[in-house]
């Protein structure tokens, strides 16, 4: 088996999942300058709701749709009830409040859905690819597809849609944007709807890829997503996607070629700290953050 080829595929699969999870918080940061950890609760919620939908109907796409809807609903509620009222309180209050939501949500999942790992035996009927002797199951093909399309899709969203224009304007100066008629309340709501739906889709894919769903499955994605959006340059969604892919590949290659010298989860943060020391503004400077 070709270790290199399979590492590339695995790295892209990981990277796409990271990109899905990190894109929402990155858009949110650009807009509101807050780090939204609760987004990872959207991931686990999506996985659970997706699993319930799959168990009921046996349809994999219904699982994705139901998960995404549940995630979006959580995102909308959080921005309406929690984040918008505390926007003027500096960056730390929303960060810690988001962590609080995340802690409470994980406990709620444990109480509602049970503390044990649950299998997610959905099969996504995409052709199972053979690449250099490695079998790539349908769900990973889907992740790779998402991985290749998420960058151009985000670029189009930011550059070619009214929402993207509004996001860019509001992220430069929310008050002025509001003054020229951009309803920043609606922009914030849309960004949360999209971001949490993406995280929820990421959760469903994560659950299917590893065939397991459990209450704390958002933990590691939550920490990594923070590393990723910082690495990519805070407030720069395209940089976030790039950083997600790089981290997915880096982790997969380090694990494949060096074994478990380091816990996989420390790699992200060691890379983060080293890169930040050389480039304090992240890999790509944010559109809006660095003048």
């Amino acid at each position: 088996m070709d270790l290199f080829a399979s590492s590339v595929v695995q790295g892209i699969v990981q990277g796409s999942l990271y990109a899905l999870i990190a894109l929402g918080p990155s858009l949110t940061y650009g807009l509101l300058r807050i780090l939204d950890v609760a987004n990872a609760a959207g991931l686990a919620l999506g996985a659970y709701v997706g699993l319930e939908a799959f168990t009921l109907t046996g349809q994999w796409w219904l699982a994705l749709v139901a998960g995404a809807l549940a995630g979006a609903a959580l995102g909308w509620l959080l921005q309406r009830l929690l984040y918008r009222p505390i926007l003027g309180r500096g960056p730390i209050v929303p960060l810690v409040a988001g962590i609080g939501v995340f802690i409470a949500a994980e406990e709620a999942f444990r109480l509602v859905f049970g503390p044990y790992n649950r299998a997610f035996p959905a099969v996504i009927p995409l052709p199972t690819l053979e690449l250099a002797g490695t079998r790539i199951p349908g769900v990973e093909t889907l992740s790779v597809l998402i991985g290749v399309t998420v960058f151009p899709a985000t670029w189009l969203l930011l550059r070619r849609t009214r929402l993207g224009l509004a996001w860019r304007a509001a992220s430069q100066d929310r008050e002025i944007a509001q003054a020229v008629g951009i309803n920043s309340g609606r922009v914030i709501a849309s960004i949360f709807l999209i971001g949490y739906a993406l995280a929820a889709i990421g959760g469903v894919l994560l659950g299917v890829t590893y065939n397991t769903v459990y209450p704390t499955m958002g933990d590691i994605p939550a920490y990594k997503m923070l590393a990723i959006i910082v690495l990519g340059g805070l407030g720069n969604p395209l940089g976030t996607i790039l950083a997600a892919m790089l981290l997915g590949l880096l982790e997969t290659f380090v694990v494949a070629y060096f074994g478990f010298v380091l816990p996989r989860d420390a790699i992200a943060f060691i890379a983060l700290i080293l890169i930040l020391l050389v480039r304090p503004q992240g890999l790509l400077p944010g559109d809006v953050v660095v003048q």
Partner: protein
Amino acid sequence: MSLDYLEVVLVTLAIYAILAVSLNIVAGYAGQPNLAQGAFFGIGAYFAAVLSAHYGWSFWATIPAAIATAGLAGLVLGAISLRLREDFLAVTTIGLNFVVVAMFQYVPFFGGAVGVYAIPLPSIGSHQFGDGDFLAVGLAMLSVVAGLSLYLERTWFGAALLAIKDDEAAAAATGIPVAPYKIGAFVLSSGLGGLAGALYAPFLSAVTPTSFGFSESVVILAMLMFGGIGVIAGALAGAIVLGALPEVFRFISDYRLLTFGAILVLMLRFQPQGLFGIDSAALRALSRVSQRWAGRHGPPHGAGKVGASRGPA
């Protein structure tokens, strides 16, 4: 029996209070987001544990060692912080937890995944420590840390930290040496966090890598935010209320973390300055009550005074 249990809870609260008050120096006074206090706590605890269990150091000798090692780690973070802006720093401190925990797990000196166990009980002469002695030492340490913090508020250094928090550029323009002061705040704050670790290790008699790290750091920062960041009374109140919560809610232990998260979120949503933060509702109510009852009951332990002296700043 129940007295023993109460003592154990109180020692735990004292440790949390030391951690919250020491975190307040860098996060409250200097305004630097720090989600790594659990890691510094762990570094102190680990060095105290290894030195006493494997190298035969006495408890009293491990205290300065724990402060020094945690302070040294704080020096590194402080140096890093000079290059990073607020949110970058917050995430870097989150990452530091994972790096430190990985270090505990993989460096043989720290005992690997099992950690360090059979940490000897401290003793004075031939008298071995009981829970009561731990409580006495814990309260003494807390008084020292709180006293130091209180003293800091009255010094030029403390005032300079507040200025750095408000506006770094303006502080630099008035001649405050921003870089060394920031690093100083980090060193002091993390060193005192290490002090809490020196008490924790022999008290639990074992340390494991997973006892420290991100969730512990979150709990400590949550206590500080809950009580009121920037105010010593807030740090103490937060540590006591959130620290005692698991004990109070023992009968519904299944909902412990849910309650913790929910209370934290509600507090930050409706009272972002915390229980005793500047101009908080609790503080205003307290000062009203104390004014009305002044003749009959005396002022309620000076909480209003702390808020008032910090109010105009």
